[in-house]
């Protein structure tokens, strides 16, 4: 249990998040086939592989440098909406992480900034059955639990994201390709929201050690 991650420890957490996505490729593909065109898993896995490699290539002085390299690699290699959205999440979060350690306060602020950047780019809002329906409650939970320390804040964020995924099952999509499904998307969770949960869960598990 670590209350403050060094640059190297943060790197390990990001690598764990990338590995978790790569390991979930098939699950994400299946989820996207139900309400989209089925390319979410492959796109995310492609981006996460490149993101891992980017962390090794570029030296990072701050935690934010790591997040920015990670996000830029996703934007450049994932393609599609996933690349733009998840890349923007990490680059947006990276902009406020100017220290060489990551604590609960930084984690909560980074999630909130990441959410802001994603909304500005994609013009979607919570409730539209997108990844924001996992990200927004996660950011809120991280903020509410920031005083309890990094492990607690990270776990609370992951749990809230998972609950958010469940709620997307009852939502009619207002954004992306799933939007055209109307009521037919009911009962299916949003694949992007699942990805957010996988990332945050891996991040929290690494912190918990």
């Amino acid at each position, binding site marked *: 249990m670590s209350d403050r991650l060094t640059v190297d420890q943060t790197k390990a957490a990001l690598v764990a998040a990338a590995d978790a996505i790569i390991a979930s490729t098939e699950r994400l*593909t299946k989820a996207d*086939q139900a309400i989209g*065109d*089925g*390319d979410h898993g*492959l*796109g995310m896995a*492609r981006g996460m592989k490149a993101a891992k490699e980017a962390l090794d290539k570029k030296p990072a002085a701050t935690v934010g440098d790591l997040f920015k390299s990670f996000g830029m690699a996703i*934007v*450049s*290699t*994932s*393609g*599609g*909406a*996933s*690349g*733009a*959205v998840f890349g923007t999440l990490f680059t947006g979060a990276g902009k406020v992480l100017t220290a060489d350690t990551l604590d609960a306060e930084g984690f909560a602020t980074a999630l909130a900034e990441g959410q802001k950047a994603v909304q500005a*780019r*994609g013009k979607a809002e919570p409730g539209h059955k997108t990844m924001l329906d996992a990200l927004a409650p996660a950011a809120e939970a991280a903020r509410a639990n920031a005083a309890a320390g990094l492990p607690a804040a990270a776990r609370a964020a992951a749990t809230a994201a998972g609950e958010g995924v469940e709620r997307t099952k009852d939502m009619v999509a207002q*954004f*992306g*390709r799933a*939007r*055209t*499904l*109307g009521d*037919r998307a009911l009962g299916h969770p949003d694949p992007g929201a699942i990805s957010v949960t996988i990332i945050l869960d891996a991040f929290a598990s690494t912190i918990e050690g």
Partner: protein
Amino acid sequence: MTKVQKIINDPENIVAEVIDGLVLASHGRLRKLEDAPALLRTDIEPGKVALLVGGGSGHEPMYSAYVGKGLADASVCGNIFASPPPNHIHAATVAADQGKGVLYVYGNYAGDVMNFDMAAEMAAEDGIEVRTVLVNDDVATDRPEDRRGIGGAFYIVKIAGAACAEAQSLDEAEAVVRKAQASTRTIGVALRAGSLPETGEPTFELGEGEIEIGLGVHGEPGVERSALMPADELTEKMIDRLVNDLPFGRGDRVAMLLNNLGATTQMELLIVNRKARQILADKGIEVARTDIGAYFTSQEMAGFSITLIRLDEELERLIEAPCESLPFTQR
């Protein structure tokens, strides 16, 4: 579910190998950009307004192959059914720009809009002005701002190519392409899904004997699922939906595109054409030009789309202007 057979190598190399194939077929008129999966004309006229098109691969010949004199100056190829990333679009933008700015024409999909917008912001930092006209011709979506870009892309790209070849400014080119965008409507029908080459799995399921009107080129659901019906009945349903949407009316002059989504025969499209012309003639709509073929496909999807574009003097002149490319050349 049996996997669909395709003549490919490593699925990871599909886009690169398609680009190589296009470059070789161009006999020196196209080149691949060094650090991005993008095609560029080798003979872009200096000082012209540049036209850049692009989107996910898998819809060949759209958008990648419509590069050439009188068409696009550059095309950027995403992975199968996924938008290209901003760094690739940006690299092609820089390469295509001749000092008068770059017009982007691509389909209205969330991923494409985000990635092309990011590229346009990067280009702005380099001092390159970018304007965007989205292809949004699919009448199967209720809200006009949500409308996807499908077969009508061919007419929009054709007109944009001719407009950018003669326009004095980016403003001028953008204005005429906006007019083309506002005059174009398309409706599609699918009989059987295409498949993702990476997985060999179909992008959607249709029951035995079922068809879906308005189904999108990536399998997005349409407006009406029903049993297969005779060609005449289906054509009537589709033309009615199109005509009522713009609406097209008595005295209009139009061009009509019957686009094969991949696996439909020319035989079927010619039967549809015969009925479409009867219906349009009855409504007093004059068809000034007909295009029939595979202009915008979705792998081996069986089905087709009908596009109508209302022509005025300017749009008709631009649509009839000469152009050269592997899939489409006119003198």
